[in-house]
């Protein structure tokens, strides 16, 4: 069962990593992209999902009693969360020198949440937010 759980989490993690890249590439959230052009993000997603599926379903017979529905749900959420964390860290490291094509004129015009990540990486956004809080204090 431990093997099955590990395989399942790893499969979901890789597939989620890929699918997140496709989604952020499409939405234009540059701060979370591993690639400069969305086409590479889509290709990465295709490879990640198909390769992980092929591995998961061919390495062992999966038509056996394995994980219950609730367990699947919990592990899927865990894997998706881990994939998001990996995306945040990797994209921040890859794009550490990211400069916006259309830099916002003022702090307020950045927009909340993902809107900010269209112009900077996650780490840059956190740093900026902490600096702003320190200035206000």
């Amino acid at each position, binding site marked *: 069962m431990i093997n099955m759980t590990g395989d399942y989490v790893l*499969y979901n993690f890789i597939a989620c990593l890929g*699918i997140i890249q496709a989604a952020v590439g499409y939405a234009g959230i540059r701060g979370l992209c591993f690639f400069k052009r969305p086409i590479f993000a889509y290709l990465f997603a295709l490879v990640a999902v198909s390769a992980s*599926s092929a591995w998961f379903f061919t390495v062992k017979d*999966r038509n056996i009693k394995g994980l219950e529905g609730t367990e699947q749900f919990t592990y899927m959420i865990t894997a998706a969360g881990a994939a*998001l964390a990996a995306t945040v860290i990797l994209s921040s490291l890859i794009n550490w020198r990211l400069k916006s094509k259309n830099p916002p004129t003022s702090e307020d015009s950045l927009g*909340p*949440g993902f809107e*900010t990540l269209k112009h900077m990486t*996650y780490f840059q956004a956190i740093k900026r937010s902490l600096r702003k809080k320190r200035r206000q204090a």
Partner: protein
Amino acid sequence: MIADADTKLFEWMNSLAGKNWLLDKFVMWTANDYFVPILMTLLMVTLWFSGRTLIQRERSQRVFMLALSCMGIANGFVKISNNFFFRPRPYVGHEAHMLFYPPTDSSFPSNGAAVTFALATAVFISNRKLGTVLYFLCLVWAFARVTAGVHYPFDILGGWAFGVATVVFTYFVFIYVEPWGTFLIRAFRKVYLA
């Protein structure tokens, strides 16, 4: 009469198993507990990030939260129903051609159908394109589960009804607890995750 039609339909669909190598492989691939649910969940993950504008994205994220809640609640409803009603699996009492391991829990309603149809219906309400894709995947899975000898067709129909009822119930619960949805999205936005 309904039970009779259910059995006849099951026997016809299950008779397709074991005749064609390609169809058997397809059924075994799609009927298992992982392939279709994971594919559907991956498509749902895209909802969290999709939308080019803030308003579009917020709408998608609300659908994501609704669909995720529906999955959990549908699963709970089926578990409660199983405490009151038990229907043996088709391989008990029929000569079913099994392309799947023999499950021992109640056949009606199909837990998988309830959860996946709940997810697809929740998405379909506000995103017709993605909802249609998810519904298609649900139907493929349902066909495969009956053909593989895991469920009667009526179990799938029951699962669908449970799924739709769950979405209606959760939709109204969401209206009732609305400030929490907005609060959650704002909290995620604060840390740049929504």
